């Protein structure tokens, strides 16, 4: 199935905020053998509507099928494939590193360079909080690795179409 046209695609899916809806979306990806790279779920400004950001590796044809299949779920309200639409994507990570007093100065420097925040300090460890693109978070992780990372939690990508662009209307014929 691996084709040169395959790349990471991000879908923003608006769904009913009801019990079991995430299960329905996840079940679709599982049973159609679409592999999820990242998944983030949360509430929106609208009561009763949740926002799901799904990232998966797919070619254009698969992406279209994913979209069409998502629309078949009764609880799905809207699907946007962000591949060809200007959008903003962020990831948040909490990184716990070993850090005695001798490393503190270096840590503070890193914090500043990456515009991260140290949100917890204990005698032997620190927790960095960082928000940004996946690349930025990856490089912070690389930089901190020599210190000794003892914990890492990432939200996965959260995406939104830019205010200046309208999402391309979906499912108009076939390409």
């Amino acid at each position, binding site marked *: 199935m691996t084709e040169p046209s395959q790349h990471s695609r991000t879908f923003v899916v608006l769904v009913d905020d009801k019990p079991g809806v995430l299960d329905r979306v996840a079940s679709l990806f599982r049973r159609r053998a679409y592999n999820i790279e990242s998944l983030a779920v949360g509430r929106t400004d609208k009561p009763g509507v949740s926002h799901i950001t799904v990232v998966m590796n797919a070619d254009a044809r698969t992406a*279209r*099928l994913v979209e*069409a299949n998502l*629309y*078949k779920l*009764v609880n799905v309200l809207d699907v946007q494939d962000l591949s060809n639409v200007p959008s903003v994507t962020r990831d948040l990570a909490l990184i716990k590193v070993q850090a005695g007093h001798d490393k503190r100065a270096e840590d503070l420097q890193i914090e500043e360079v990456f515009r991260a925040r140290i949100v917890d300090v204990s005698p032997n460890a620190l927790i960095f909080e960082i928000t940004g693109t996946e690349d930025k978070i990856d490089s912070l992780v690389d930089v901190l690795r020599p210190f000794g990372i003892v914990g890492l939690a990432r939200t996965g990508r959260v995406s939104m179409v830019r205010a200046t662009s309208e999402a391309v209307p979906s499912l108009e*014929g*076939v390409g």
Partner: protein
Amino acid sequence: MAKRRTGAQIIWDALEQQGVEHVFGYPGGAILPAYDALLDSRIHHVLVRHEQGAAHMADGYARASGGVGVAIATSGPGATNLVTGIATARLDSSPLVCITGQVPSKVIGTDAFQETDITGVTLPITKHNFLVTKTEDIAPTIRRAFHIASEGRPGPVLIDITKDAQQNEIDYEPDDSPIELPGRFRTGPLNPDDVERAVEILASAKRPLILAGRGIMMSSAGSRVLDLVEKTRIPVATTLLGIGGFPATHPLNMGMMGMHGEAWVNQAIQNADVLLALGMRFDDRVVGDPKKYATGALKIHLDIDPSEINKIIQVDVALVGDLSSSLDTLTPKLEIQDLSPWHHFIKDLKGDSAVRDIQALPDSGHLYAAHVINDLWRLTEGKALVATDVGQHQMWEAQYYKHDHPRKLITSGGLGTMGFALPAAMGAKVACPDEEVWVVVGDGGFQMTAAELSTCKQENLKVNIAIINNGYLGMVRQWQEFFYDKRYAATPMQNPDFVKLAEAHGLHGIRVEKRSEIEAAVGAARAEEGTVVIDFKVEREDTVYPMVAPGSTIETMIRRPTDTLVKTEKS
């Protein structure tokens, strides 16, 4: 005016509001309140012998009538016994509403007696499902369920209702406001550019073919397809589930395509320059190797489900929408052209096929399934509604019973469910009591749901059952013959005496061992008031020809040998 009603009473009120007259089910602890209220409803309940039978009956009811079928079961094992029937309905897009009882809401999640998470279990095999824990949600949920089951591409919907929701009483007032599903894919008018492109492609086609699927039945588009074919003279090939969507005896109906389709049909598909697919989904049994499928043909796909477009076969034009309205747009724009060279080409493809037909073989004293089904077709004048399971008998029925009308063949296509035919036929008979209903079934599949003979008796349902009895799981044996060096692992079957089995149920049984006995047996069955079981003891190691080996190119077919030799041909 609002009335005080229990949830149990509201279930039947809401079903009556949907026009339901018959339901198929089996009681148990968690659904008992609903069953108690059943006695005060005008809905007729058919008591099945196993919940799988209830789901298949509801499915057969839906397929025969065009309406929604309803199955009812209790929690736990009652609900899980529905699963095969729900999966069957899902793959063949049959609209079902299944209602299951659930343990009281307070004990959900505690592994209570007969508790199963049935909405979890059926999530991937239903179009949608609901867990209802509040009495006031029962009626709106039932209305939504019927809407979802029948809109767009139909499918099964399950509603799991807790026992306390059935027991509690509320002020109830029926609601008939329209149902809105905000996120649903809406099939608007077709894109004019796509229609234009389809018209252009068809205008320059020299070797076009129509691929006719079950969507024709779902959209009641039979007469429109007939108009299309009469106007354009484009030959038609049908899928298994498309049988009846276009008259089998029409001169432009070539027959069934696919794994056990006619060889010339598959060869014609491979030689076509345009394929016009109507409400079919390029299933692997139809396509064989997708990389080598009709590579020279431009493809136009009409389907209501956008997720079927480009799923298996990349198409050139997709017209997504209800088939009837799509054809109303497309057909008037098509031009009449001379396709006679193509018609002659197809006629030549038929070649020696007639010679290979078992009908042409001299009577060797053996009874062949093809004889049984061909005679059944002749004696019922092609007008019977026939239900089949899956396997050899299913393919022989598809090849030899020429259905001229929609909704006259009810078979488990996508899931290939053994045990489907008898209960599905019973459901069809309940829906259409004036139809002559036949079950054509193998000895293996029949035994999977044979307990429903009791239901036939109890309900005075008249169906005729033709068991194609070869003492084998025939299709599996055939695969073992072709692909496993004739090592018949677990396929020979020792069967009960089916005549005595019928008699034990208070029904009539007949045994047929010779071709000359078929006519009398079919006549006797038709004359009998109750259900009749005919045990056709057919040739044990007969084979369904032709056959495309799984995953092969469809024109590479194993043909019935003209001598004793099986040979593989390439055209």
